[in-house]
C-alpha cells in the first residue's frame, strides 16, 4: 500500500511539474494545425536564429571536446601543479549564474575593460559572434572533462604501459589504447555539451545585445517573440528546442558510459 502511494506521489509530481506543461506547449503549438507552426519557424528571423545557434554550437562543442579530453588526461595522468585549483575552475561554470558569466565577459571586452581595445582594432567581441561563442564555451566547459576523468581513472595505466613497452609512441598508445576506452565517455560529454550550448540563454543574452536578425539565437528569439506578443512564434521556437532536448535525452540513454575496459 505504502509502495503504491509513493509511486503515485512520484508520478503525480513529475506529471504536474514536467509532463503536463511540456505536453501543453506541444498542444498549443499545433492546435491550429501544422501550417501556422511551420510558418512561424520558417520566418527569416527564426531561421537566422536557428542557424546562429547551430553555428555557435559547431564552434564551442569541438573546442570543449578537444581541450576537454586533453584537460582530463592532464588531470589524471600527469602531475599537474595546482591540480586542485584547475579542478575547481573546471567545475565553476556548473555552479555559476549564466548572467555572472555574461557580465564577466562584458566587463573584460567592453569599453574600459582589459581587452576592450580589441574593438577599436576592428575585432568586435561583444554584440557579435566571438562574444557569444566565448560565453557558450565558458558555460559548457565542464561536461567532457567531468565525463572522461572518472573513466580514465578507472581504466588505470596497465594497458598503456604494456603498449609503451612494446614500442608504441605516445600518440599510438593514445589512439589505440586510451581513446577506445574513453570514447563512450566522450560521446556522453559531447551530448551534454551540445545540449548546454544550444540552450544557453543568460550568458549569451548579456553579451549578444539581442539584435533581432543579427545576434539573436533561438532561445533569445523565443523570449523576444513571447514578450512581443507572438506566442505562436515563441511556442514554435520552443518546440524546435524541445525536440532537440528530447533527441539529447535519447542520445544520453544510448551513449551512457558502459563498461568495456
Amino acid at each position, binding site marked *: 500500500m505504502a509502495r503504491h502511494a509513493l*509511486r503515485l506521489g*512520484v508520478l503525480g*509530481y513529475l506529471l504536474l*511539474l*514536467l509532463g503536463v506543461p*511540456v505536453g*501543453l*506547449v506541444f498542444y*498549443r503549438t499545433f492546435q491550429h494545425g501544422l501550417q501556422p507552426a511551420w510558418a512561424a519557424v520558417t520566418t527569416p528571423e527564426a531561421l537566422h536564429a536557428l542557424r546562429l545557434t547551430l553555428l555557435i554550437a559547431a564552434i564551442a562543442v569541438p573546442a570543449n571536446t578537444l*581541450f576537454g579530453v*586533453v584537460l582530463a*588526461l*592532464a588531470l*589524471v595522468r*600527469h*602531475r*599537474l601543479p595546482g591540480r*586542485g585549483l*584547475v*579542478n*575547481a*575552475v*573546471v*567545475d*565553476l561554470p556548473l*555552479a*555559476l*549564474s*549564466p*548572467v*555572472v558569466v555574461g*557580465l564577466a*565577459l*562584458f*566587463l*573584460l571586452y567592453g569599453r574600459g575593460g582589459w581587452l576592450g581595445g580589441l574593438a577599436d582594432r576592428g575585432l568586435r567581441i561583444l554584440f557579435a559572434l566571438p562574444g557569444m561563442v566565448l560565453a557558450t*564555451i*565558458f558555460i559548457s*566547459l565542464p561536461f567532457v572533462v567531468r565525463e572522461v576523468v572518472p573513466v580514465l581513472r578507472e581504466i588505470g595505466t596497465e594497458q*598503456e*604501459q604494456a603498449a*609503451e*613497452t612494446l614500442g608504441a609512441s*605516445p*600518440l599510438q*598508445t593514445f589512439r589505440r589504447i586510451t581513446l577506445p576506452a574513453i570514447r563512450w565517455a566522450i560521446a556522453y560529454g559531447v551530448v*551534454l555539451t551540445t545540449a548546454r550550448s544550444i540552450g544557453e*540563454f*543568460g550568458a549569451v543574452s548579456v553579451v549578444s545585445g539581442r539584435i533581432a536578425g543579427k545576434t539573436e539565437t*533561438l*532561445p533569445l528569439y*523565443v*523570449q523576444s517573440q*513571447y514578450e512581443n506578443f507572438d506566442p505562436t512564434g515563441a*511556442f514554435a521556437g*520552443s518546440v524546435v528546442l524541445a525536440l532537440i*532536448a*528530447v533527441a539529447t535525452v535519447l542520445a*544520453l*540513454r544510448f551513449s551512457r558510459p558502459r563498461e568495456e575496459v
Partner: protein
Amino acid sequence: MATSPALALRRPGTVAARGGGTLARGVALGYPSLVVLVPLAALAWSSRSGGLMGFWTEVTLPEAVAALKLTLFLSLLVSALNALSGTAIAWVLVRDSFPGKSLLDGVIDLPFALPTIVAGLVLLTLYGPNGPFGLNLAFTRAGIALALLFVTLPFVVRAVQPVLLELDREMEEAAESLGARPVATFRRIVLPNLVPAILSGVALAFARAVGEFGAVVLISGNLPFKTEIASVYIFGQIESGNERGAAAVSVVLLLLSLGVLLLIGAFRHWRTGHDG
C-alpha cells in the same frame, strides 16, 4: 600479466608523459585560465573599482539586499524540497517496478536538456495567465519556486540513484527479520547510506537555483522587492548601465558558488576518498 621489475617500479602516470606531457600540462593550465579565470578576474577587478566602500554601498542597496535575500530563501526552500522529492523519485526508480519505468527514468534528464527559456515558457503555459486550470502563478514567488523546482529536478535523483542501486539489501533484510517496520528500516539503515549523495545533490541544486536566470525571467515579472531575484537584478543593472552595481552583486554570487563547490568537494571526498 607478467611485468618487468623496471616497469613495475615506474610510477603510474608517467606513460605518455614525455611526448605530450608539456603540451597537455600547458592546455590544462592555459585553457581554463583563458576561458574562465581571466573574465572572472576582470569581474572582480571592476567590482572593486569604487573601493571597498563602493562595493559595500552597491551590495547593501535595499533593492540588491531584497533580491539576494529572496534568492537565498527560494534556493534553500527548493533545495529542501528536492532532498525529499529527489530521494523519493530515486527510490521509486530503483526499488519499484511498473510498466513505463524506463521511460520515467529518461524523462528525469529532460530539465537538463531543455533550454531554460523553454522551461520558463512551458511552465507559464500551464501555470500562467491563460492556463487551463485557472491557476495563475505568473509574477509570484510561488511561480519562481516552481521554475526552480523544474530546473533542479535531476540533481538529487541522479546523485542518489547509483548509491541506492549499489546498496546491499542484506542489512535491510536483517533489520526486517528482527521486526523493524519499513519506516524504521529506511530511517536507520538506508538513509544513513544515502546522506552524502543527497547532500551533494542538494548542494548542486542549490548552486543552480541561486544562479538560475532563463527559467525565471519570464515567470517572475521582475517586480523589485517582490519577485526580483539576484540574477535578474544583475541583468537589470547591466541594462541600465550600472555595471559596478551589477559586478558587486555578481561577486556575491561568485563567492556563494565557490563556497558550494568547496562543500561538494568535501562531500565527494567523504564518499569516494578522492577528489575529481
